[in-house]
């Protein structure tokens, strides 16, 4: 009887381990949009160019101009994005840093820069 409990416990642990690995290993594509974005009646305009870093790696080799889209591949649920406005190759103002979560079930996630810069809550969304 005790053997059964110990074995069941082990199986449960392994299943939990499996779920854990699944979540932290799941790959997601982050589409970084520097475009106009309308949400809940508010429109965020894409105005400037930005250099973007996700988890320490730069997205694209140059700054993301207004109206453009970049992509980054990441794994797992929690990430950090740093956005730095640039004009004529020179940084303007301070870099903005935000942390965000990605739902495990989604593969493709879109991040909107103007919304992020404006300080909106919902700059991360999923396009069906």
């Amino acid at each position, binding site marked *: 009887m005790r053997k059964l409990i110990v074995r069941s416990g082990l199986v449960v642990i392994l299943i939990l381990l499996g779920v854990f690995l699944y979540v932290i*290993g799941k790959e997601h594509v982050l589409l970084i949009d520097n475009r106009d974005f309308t949400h809940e009646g508010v429109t965020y305009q894409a105005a400037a160019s930005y250099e973007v870093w996700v988890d320490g790696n730069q997205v694209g080799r140059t700054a993301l101009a207004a109206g453009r889209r970049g992509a980054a591949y990441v794994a797992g649920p929690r990430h950090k994005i740093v956005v730095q406005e640039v004009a004529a190759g020179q940084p303007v103002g301070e870099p903005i840093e935000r942390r965000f979560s990605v739902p495990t079930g989604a593969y493709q996630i879109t991040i909107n820069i103007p919304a992020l810069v404006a300080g909106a809550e919902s700059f991360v969304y999923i396009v069906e």
Partner: protein
Amino acid sequence: MKAMNPVLKALIDYAVPIMFILLVAVAAPLSGLSVEFLANEVMMRLARNSFLILSLLIPVMAGMGMNFGMVLGAMAGEIVLILITDWRIVGIPGILLAMLISTPIAIVFGYFAGVVLNKAKGREMVTGLMLGFFMNGVYQLIVLYGMGKVIPITNKEILLTRGYGIRNAINLEGIRQSLDNLIKLNLFGVQVPVATLLVIAALCLFIIWFRRTKLGQDMRTVGQDMDIARTVGIDVDRTRVVSIVISTVLASYGMIIFLQNMGTLNTYNSHEQIGFFCIAALLVGGASVAKASIPNVFLGVILFHTVFVVSPRAGAQLIGEAQLGEYFRVFITYGVIAFSLALYAWRRKVERENERKKQMMLHRAALQGKGGAGFAQADR
């Protein structure tokens, strides 16, 4: 019954590795490949294959011979990798998850194989071979027909155009080199995948420890003599099945390690050859059907794969056709297995006949003794 000259005996025992060393000595310079290139290739192949070959050791211990059924473990690993790729799990978590999920599948396959092999005692190797072919059919049933229809696959890239069935080759981009690159060193121009080697070392330690456990000792007894094992109270059938299950699980992990290095999965071909190459490598390292140890694995993988890398070019230089080198390499693989098996079978036959002669002599002596001293020596 004459005792064999020890030098002659050693030569015969190690005939295959000696042949291979000579082969390397001749073919390597002939091929014109640089030492650094060879060293890199061999290191990579060592890291890639050693785990798989190590999985063959335990069945040999239990007297099951060369486990041609390791292919079943390889298939389990492949099926799981297909799923992982579909779910887009990447990196080390992907590999670990693959190993985690492949374990129960490999256990089921291994159990099935073990039960079948128990019913074919004395013919394990042929049966294992045919079982491997049979399971290939079952694998195709699952992967070529089941996936996409019965087993949901969301990633359209890996499916065939008709909507179900996996493509011939899948890019394992997500886990490519994940284990290899984890810790990487560059020694004298040779890339060394330290993490992988650590994993292999861990397996070696496991095998050494396992040999000392009760289960391990039981297996060795079963391997030496099934009847004695039975009289000592060991459940022979169960022990044999367990040895195959362990080997199959290890083979599935080994296949995952193999494939993370390759980076591409040849869905329908990868596992076919893996059995032959691993067994050939083990035999080249001096192992026999009855005796195989860890040094055999490493010696074998280095010798076998050096010849493997070197022969196409050497063949081209020698005869002028690179294709010949390819065929030569396949011929060497099969030839090595044939030669080793024949050698082993011949020795077994000689031993059996010597045993028979010994029994006859004892019997005769007993009969004579009965006439003289009045009581008979019991012989077995």
